[in-house]
């Protein structure tokens, strides 16, 4: 751990996290402190548990049969796996963007307004406001402002993904979890999503899974290297990409394995 990291406030702290799909253990003793307002990238070979880890952070794995968590995930110092956690409120605080863009088969407006409506916003003016703000934040407003009532399935892949980001932002989360948000996109759309992440940095604590080393080095402040369900190394992106401590990390980053 470097000094700069120690000075930052921790938003998400995982301590000795073990995770099981039935009898199969997918995460082993994962302990990291995700700093507030920074972008943290999760990298590692396929199947090493990045998505699994990400999904423990908003308890998305709860809906999978037979899964089990040991250890703690503290968000703002509070264990989200304690019995008095309201999962619905927890998930409202944590936005999630998936690898495959998944607009609802509804209008663009209704997609963005879905979350606020669920959380009790009824007034049209207020909804209009939230929708416009969210779309502007995700740099999609200019492209869709004249077609708010069109079905969101008609947008391009890149637009759909930014729509999904806007939809997540519309409920005003503190944390944004992104699982390979650009892996299905062409380079131009990828660049837009990356710009967007840079924009959102500071306002949100962002955890992003990516297979793209350049992307990790471009967008993130911190990088965690996962291997076979364990954290091998966690440090500032600069350290990880220039002089990692572990040989495995270096091998992976330079493409020698994985």
């Amino acid at each position, binding site marked *: 751990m470097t000094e700069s990291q120690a000075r930052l406030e921790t938003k998400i702290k995982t301590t000795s996290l073990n995770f099981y799909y039935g009898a199969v253990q997918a995460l082993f003793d994962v302990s990291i402190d995700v700093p507030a307002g920074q972008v943290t990238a999760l990298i590692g070979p396929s199947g090493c548990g990045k998505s699994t880890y990400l999904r423990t952070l908003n308890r998305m794995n709860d809906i999978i049969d037979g899964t089990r968590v040991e250890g703690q995930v503290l968000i703002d110092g509070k264990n989200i796996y304690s019995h008095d956690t309201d999962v*619905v409120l927890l*998930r409202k605080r944590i936005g999630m963007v998936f690898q495959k863009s998944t607009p609802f088969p509804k209008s663009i407006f209704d997609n963005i307004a*879905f979350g606020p409506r669920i959380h009790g916003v009824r007034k049209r003016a207020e909804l209009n406001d939230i929708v416009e703000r969210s779309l502007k934040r995700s740099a999609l407003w200019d492209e869709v402002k004249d077609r708010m009532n069109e079905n969101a399935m008609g947008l391009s892949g890149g637009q759909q993904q930014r729509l999904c980001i806007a939809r997540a932002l519309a409920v005003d989360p503190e944390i944004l979890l992104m699982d390979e948000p650009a892996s299905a996109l062409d380079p131009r759309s990828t660049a837009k999503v990356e710009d967007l992440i840079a924009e959102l940095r500071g306002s949100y604590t962002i955890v992003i899974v990516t297979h793209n080393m350049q992307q990790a080095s471009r967008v993130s402040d911190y990088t965690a290297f996962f291997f076979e369900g364990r954290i091998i190394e966690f440090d500032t992106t600069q350290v990880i990409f220039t002089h990692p401590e572990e040989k495995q990390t270096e091998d992976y980053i330079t493409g020698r394995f994985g």
Partner: protein
Amino acid sequence: MKASRTAFRKVWDKAFVSIVLLLSILSIVPLFLIFFHIFKEGFSSITPGFFVNLPKPVGEPGGGIANALVGSGLLVLVACILALPVGIAVGVFLAEARTNLFSTSVRLSMEVLQGMPSIVIGIIAYLWVVKPMGTFSALSGSVALAIMMLPVIVRTTEETLRLVPRSLKEVSLALGAPYYLTVLRVVLPAGISGIVTGILISVARIAGETAPLLFTAFGNPFMNTNLLKPVNSLPLIIFNYAISPYDDWHALAWGASFVLIVLVLALNLLSKVISHRFRVEF
């Protein structure tokens, strides 16, 4: 030797294809014969008066099936009101529930119910509704029809909802939507076309059922819209007129069959159109 084997194979190949084709053609022959016959016999009965008049005594011309049309409509409508909420709820449950003893038993029960002879369902409705009420009634007929609709609605609802991708549900949950709102606002709307299709198919299925109505709705020569009194229905009027010894009543039975077939066909076509135009696509 080799050449003859090849020749034999080719002949056999041709013969096989011809047999399959022939049997396929044969299989649609009965349908066309039925249409032809019903059209021929029934079409002459179809006059405007046929739809608005009540049945008339033997020998008096101009009898109609107005009471049967209204009765069938009433029976189906009330059956839908009874079966839809339950059927959709059970369908949602089966699509969403984890596999355990309970969900497996429910699914199995629906399959058994689907295969239950309709006459048995009629008897059950008689025991449950007619006996306690002390009278045949439209309501008891609707109960019998609702029981018949139920498994179809459950199955189509479950099958459609299983097509709704899990990712869509996850997005909703990740936005902080509680589970019930996720089902109501995301899962059900995404599968609505399939559910509507299932409803239409099940209505088409029960619209022509006679057996469950024999000792429930019973039949009624007069117009009735009171749920607690017996009503007539298309299949019942067909049954009663067809077994009568009078030629002009036979003609009415053909006419009513014609109407029933057209209605059922229309429902089936409509369900095809809906499931095609609005299918679940992701």
